[in-house]
C-alpha cells in the first residue's frame, strides 16, 4: 500500500498521549487539514486503522474504545457507499451518516478548548500561596473537648470511610484489553472460508463461541475486503451472503 500520508508523524505520538479515540480522530483530521464538517471518511478511516495497526505492531496495549471507534468509522463508510435512492436524493430528510460523529467531535472539541482556559486559570491560581491552618496545641484541644467533640466514634467513622474508599478503588472492569484478533488474520479467515465455498452466509462466519472481539474484527476485515474489491456482499431475503470476486486472469 502506498503511504498516502506520512506515517512517521503519527507513530512518534504514542497512543497513550491521546485522551481517547475522539482525540486521535481530531488529531488526524487536523493533520490532514480536513474540514470537520466534511470529513473524508474513507481517508480518515484508513489513517485511523493504519495508526492502530502500527501501535499494535509495537505491542502497545490499546483500549477497546479505539476499536469500537474503528468499527464505527467503517460503518459510516459503508453507509456512505450505499447507493442513495435518487427519489429522496434532494429530500431534506436525508441524514448524513457522518452527522452523529461530527456532533460528538464538536462537543468533545469544545470541552477540550474550555479545559485549556481552565488550565490557564489553574496556573494563575497556583501562583498564590497559603499556609496550613494554625493548629491548636493538643492540650488546648483536650481543653476544648468538654463537649466531647473528639469522641472515639470519630475513629470508627474515619475507619469506615477508609474502607469505603478502598472498596471504591478496587479494580474496575478492565477497559484496556489486549485485542486477540487482527484485521489481517480475519481477512485470511474470511478468504479461507470463501475458497472452500462459492457463497458464504454472513452469519455462518460466527458461532456461539465467537466473542465480541472476534465479531468486530471479522466485520472490519470484511469491510476492508469489500473496499479492496476482493469480496462482494449480496442480500437474499433477510440474509447476507459473501462471494469472492474473481478478477480476470485469476484462477
Amino acid at each position, binding site marked *: 500500500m502506498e503511504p498516502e500520508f506520512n506515517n512517521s508523524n503519527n507513530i512518534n505520538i504514542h497512543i497513550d498521549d491521546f485522551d481517547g479515540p*475522539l482525540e486521535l480522530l481530531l488529531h488526524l483530521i487536523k493533520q490532514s487539514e480536513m474540514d470537520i464538517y466534511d470529513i473524508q471518511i474513507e481517508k480518515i478511516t484508513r489513517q485511523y486503522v493504519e495508526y492502530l495497526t502500527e501501535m499494535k505492531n509495537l505491542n502497545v496495549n490499546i483500549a477497546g474504545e479505539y476499536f469500537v471507534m474503528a468499527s464505527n468509522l467503517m460503518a459510516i463508510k459503508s453507509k456512505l457507499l450505499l447507493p442513495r435512492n435518487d427519489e429522496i436524493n434532494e429530500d431534506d430528510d436525508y441524514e448524513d451518516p457522518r452527522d452523529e460523529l461530527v456532533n460528538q467531535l464538536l462537543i*468533545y472539541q469544545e470541552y477540550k478548548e*474550555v479545559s485549556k482556559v481552565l488550565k490557564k486559570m489553574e496556573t494563575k491560581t497556583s501562583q498564590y500561596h497559603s499556609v496550613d491552618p494554625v493548629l491548636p496545641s493538643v492540650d488546648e484541644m483536650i481543653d476544648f473537648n468538654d463537649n466531647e467533640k473528639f469522641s472515639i466514634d470519630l475513629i470508627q467513622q474515619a475507619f469506615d470511610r477508609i474502607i469505603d474508599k478502598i472498596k471504591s478503588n478496587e479494580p474496575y472492569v478492565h477497559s484496556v484489553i489486549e485485542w486477540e484478533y487482527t484485521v489481517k488474520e480475519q481477512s485470511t479467515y474470511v478468504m479461507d472460508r470463501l475458497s472452500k465455498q462459492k457463497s458464504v452466509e454472513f452469519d455462518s462466519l460466527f458461532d456461539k463461541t465467537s466473542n465480541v472481539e472476534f465479531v468486530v474484527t471479522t466485520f472490519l476485515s470484511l469491510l476492508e475486503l469489500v473496499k479492496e474489491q476482493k469480496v462482494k456482499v449480496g442480500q437474499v431475503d433477510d440474509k447476507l451472503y459473501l462471494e469472492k470476486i474473481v478478477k480476470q486472469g485469476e484462477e
Partner: protein
Amino acid sequence: MVSKLAQLESLIYISGEDGITYDSLSSLMELSTSELDALMNQLRDSFQEEDSPFTLMEYSDKVQLATKEELNDLIKGYLQSDESISLTQTALETLTIIAYNQPITRVEVDDIRGVNSSKTVQRLLRQSLIATSGYKKVPGHPKLYTTTDNFLKLFGIKSLNELPKIDNEILLQEEENGGTTTEDNG
C-alpha cells in the same frame, strides 16, 4: 491594642488554606453582614499597598489569605517541593465536562469523552475536586458527580457562574443527542 481590621485579618490568617466562612467571621466578631462587608473592603484596600504581601482568595462562601502573585518566584525559591495538585490533561478534561454538566453520571462523562473515565473520576474524588451527590433516577441508579469548593479554589473562581462561557449552540446539540441531562444548567 488591636483594631477590628486586625481581628478580621487574624481570623482569616488562622484558618489557613481551609479558609473561613463569612458567617463565622460575622458571628465571631459580632458584626452584621454590612459591617463585615465594610471591614472586608477596608482589608482589601490595605492589601493593595505595596508593603502588604497578601491578597484574598474568595470562593463559595469562604475567604482565605494568600500571598500576592508577584511573590510567586520568591516563594517558589523557598518551597523546594511543589505540592500543588497537578492535573493531567485527562483529569482536566474530565473535570471540565463534570463542571459544565453537573450533576452528571460517569457514563455520561464517558459518552462525551469517548473513553472510560472511571480511573480519572476516582482520582478526582480522592483529590476532593469532585464529590458524589446522590443517584440518578434511571435504571441502575448510577452515582451523580458535582464539583466541590476545592474545585472553585483551584481555578480561583467564586462560583460556577464564573466558569468560561461555552458555545451554547454546541451544548444544545449535545442535549438533543441525549448524551447528558442537566438539571440546573442552561
